């Protein structure tokens, strides 16, 4: 076995001070286990590339949960199967680090199957070492997704059956179907020749990351004499005789040379620039207005805007709220949200108030905007006495029945249509509200509209719409 024993590289601790118990010199793995050999190969590569200080090893859940006993690098322990997600977080947070995910077959191919697939598919610039020992070592020898057909384990006491468990997963072949990974290879820790090949693959995979070439994974067929109930010598033979025929060694993908290295640049922005990008640096037209300047019945209004989805009722409400805020008042806006917004009726509720706003809901509006008949039918009875109803005569063929409220009926949809698009109807309503209630000032409402509408190229049309709404409402007097 002398040829298996490698010199201890710098990236492994000289003394395993984190390891509990008396023995701080020897690894905790069983005799003949592949983990220890692979640890050395990885540590050797890390040392040779001079990246130990910036390397972070991820300990999985499995026999190698104690990877951190051994590696003189940064260490983090991950939940079962989640190492690729943890690696993603580490690497994205600090792309200068070299992130190595070390996982067993239960960890990687069973519980973490989607995590490895998705990390590979995102092309995370990380290196994964995948120890395939065809069994769950740590928990006492249960079946792994890589357990061979017919292989007896603690949970396949009659041997793995194709009917019950299907065939073993071939991880490097599976991942090779993806575009993103840069390098995928399967090796084996059996004889000197295969260990030399593994050493090469380990170095290549780490170099791939250092060079910013993207995702790499090396699958290593590795002995678990304890789990297989074989001697170390028999175990190696079992890998050669049984595993290799189902899990052929070799490269399944290598596009490292075709790839440009990618090293994300570090961005450090000033606070000013951050606030600017967040849109917080805009000059806005504000004017303090007292509610006492507003006709009494419209002071501190509670507004309900209702209509079909697509009539712009939400933007209408937002424009009123934005304008209210710019008069120095408290405002709140809430939509009805969810499925009701799709195709059915949509409504939003707006408070504009000199006082603190408690409940943001509007159960009893004093301003109701009904853009279609169902909305008028539903909400007319809820309007507060002395309130006002704006209703869309283009789509509502009846007058409101209430005689204790003011009503303003205008063909908002038709006017919008006439101005070039149905979508302008909501701003025609806004114009009518300005004219009728004297709550909001025209110039501020126009500024509010500019802020609120998504497509800024429609600003001029919407200004026309607001003015037209004011004019039409005025005509009613």
């Amino acid at each position, binding site marked *: 076995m002398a040829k298996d024993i490698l010199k201890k590289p710098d990236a492994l601790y000289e003394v395993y001070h984190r390891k509990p118990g008396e023995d701080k010199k020897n690894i905790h793995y069983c005799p003949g286990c592949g983990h220890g050999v692979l640890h050395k190969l990885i540590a050797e590569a890390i040392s040779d590339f001079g990246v130990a200080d910036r390397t972070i090893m991820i300990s999985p859940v499995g026999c190698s949960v104690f990877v951190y006993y051994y590696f003189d690098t940064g*260490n983090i*322990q991950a939940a079962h199967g*989640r190492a690729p997600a943890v690696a993603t977080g580490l690497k*994205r947070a600090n792309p200068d680090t070299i992130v190595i995910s070390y996982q067993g077959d239960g960890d990687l191919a069973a519980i973490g199957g989607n*995590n490895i697939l998705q990390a590979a598919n995102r092309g995370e610039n990380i290196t994964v070492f995948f120890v395939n020992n065809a069994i769950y070592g740590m928990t006492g020898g249960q079946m792994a997704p890589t357990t061979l057909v017919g292989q007896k384990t603690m949970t396949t006491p009659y041997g793995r059956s194709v009917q019950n468990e299907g065939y073993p997963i071939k991880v490097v072949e599976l991942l090779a179907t993806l575009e993103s990974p840069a390098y995928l290879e399967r090796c084996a820790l059996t004889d000197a020749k295969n260990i030399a090949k593994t050493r090469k693959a380990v170095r290549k995979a780490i170099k791939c990351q250092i060079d910013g070439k993207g995702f790499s994974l090396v699958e290593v067929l590795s002995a678990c004499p304890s789990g297989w109930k074989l001697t170390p010598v028999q175990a190696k033979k079992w890998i050669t005789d049984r595993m290799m025929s189902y899990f052929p060694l070799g490269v399944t993908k290598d596009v490292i040379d075709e790839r440009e290295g990618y090293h994300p640049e570090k*961005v450090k*922005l000033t606070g000013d620039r951050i606030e600017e990008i967040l*849109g917080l640096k805009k000059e806005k037209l504000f004017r303090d207005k007292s509610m006492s300047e507003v006709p009494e019945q419209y002071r501190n209004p509670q507004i309900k805007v209702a209509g079909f989805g697509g009539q712009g009722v939400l933007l209408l409400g937002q424009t009123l709220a934005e304008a209210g805020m710019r008069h120095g008042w408290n405002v709140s806006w809430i939509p009805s949200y969810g499925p009701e917004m799709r195709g059915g009726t949509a409504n939003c509720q707006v408070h504009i108030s000199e006082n603190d706003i408690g409940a943001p809901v509007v159960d009893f509006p004093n301003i109701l905007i009904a853009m279609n008949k169902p909305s008028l039918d539903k909400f007319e009875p809820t309007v507060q006495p002395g309130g006002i109803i704006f209703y869309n005569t283009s789509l509502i063929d009846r007058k409101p029945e209430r005689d204790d409220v003011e009503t303003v009926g205008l063909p908002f949809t038709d006017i919008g249509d006439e101005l070039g698009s149905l979508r302008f109807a909501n701003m025609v309503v806004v114009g009518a509200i300005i004219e009728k209630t004297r709550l909001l000032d025209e110039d501020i409402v126009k500024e509010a509209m500019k802020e609120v509408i998504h497509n800024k190229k429609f600003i001029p049309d919407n200004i026309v719409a607001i003015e037209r709404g004011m004019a039409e409402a005025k005509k009613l007097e």
Partner: protein
Amino acid sequence: MAKELIKSNEAVVKGALLAGAKCYFGYPITPASEIAQAASYYFPPLGRTFIQAESEVAAIQMCYGAAGAGVRVMTASSGPGISLKQEGVSYSAGSELPVVIIVIMRGGPGLGNIAPEQADYFQVVKNGGHGNYRCMVLAPNCGQEMCDLTIHAFEMADKYRNPVYVLTDGFIGQMMEPVEFPEAMDIDERAKADWALLGDAETKGNIINSIYLDQDELEEHNRKLQRKYARMKAEDVLFEEYRLDDAEIATIGYGIVSRVLKSAVDVCREKGIKVGLLRPITLFPFPEKQVAEIANRVDNILVCELSNGQMVEDVRLVGCRGKAKISFYGRMGGNVPTVDELAEQITKVAEGGDIDG
């Protein structure tokens, strides 16, 4: 800085970025999706990371990794996704990692619906994951607090090296209100060099880990965590009181319910009922002293929630020795009570009636 009329869910993202959040990992779910969408819009232009993860399970583990690397990191979701995050929350608490998790509650159980509920109080405040851990839980009830408490969450997460939730309901999340944003903070990750993995010689000896094979070591680790939670109780309880000074009835509610209660309190005060409101802002640490004190002072406590009665258990726990009778009124399924509805319940209590909520 100028006020902005902004959706609460978006205010969370801007607040987070001003607090120096470097990474966002999430998975879409209504009614929290706007948070992921706003994050995808704002994080990259600032040179920060947004990733739509493969699941909430993965998103929180990405947070675990990024927090381990010393950066401010967040995720957001709603009930079904928060259930999936529990694994990572427990690991983050166990490894003492600062992660900010925004929860916009929807109706449950199961797929439920997307309307607002407060039925995930148990899961979030009492911990849905395994082990003896606690998370700080902040409960905003307006747009401004969605920003401010998100920022506070990052501060608290770092202060305690612990996951912090910002918990609210779909109603508050969807609402737009004026928000005044503070200035951008400059966060130096080197401040975490004593425990984080910054990818250099100085920090490589640090280890991020929640495994302690030795029973005594694990017990000591747990005791240390409990001391931390005790410190949260001593130093960082937040709450708001409204018209409680001369109150004979105290209502208690958080999130959207506290807004409706506030209006209902005003309505009842006009009718001459002496009623006020206690709003817990931290659900953990729960304002135990305040509730106990109020329970000694008032005749009646009325707890309102959008749930089958979850926070009320905490109120009963600390209020049971007081003289106040503690009643509960709850709505479920996404129904939010109206002002009149809650005013009616308060009136019932004032008249000595029973609530069957």
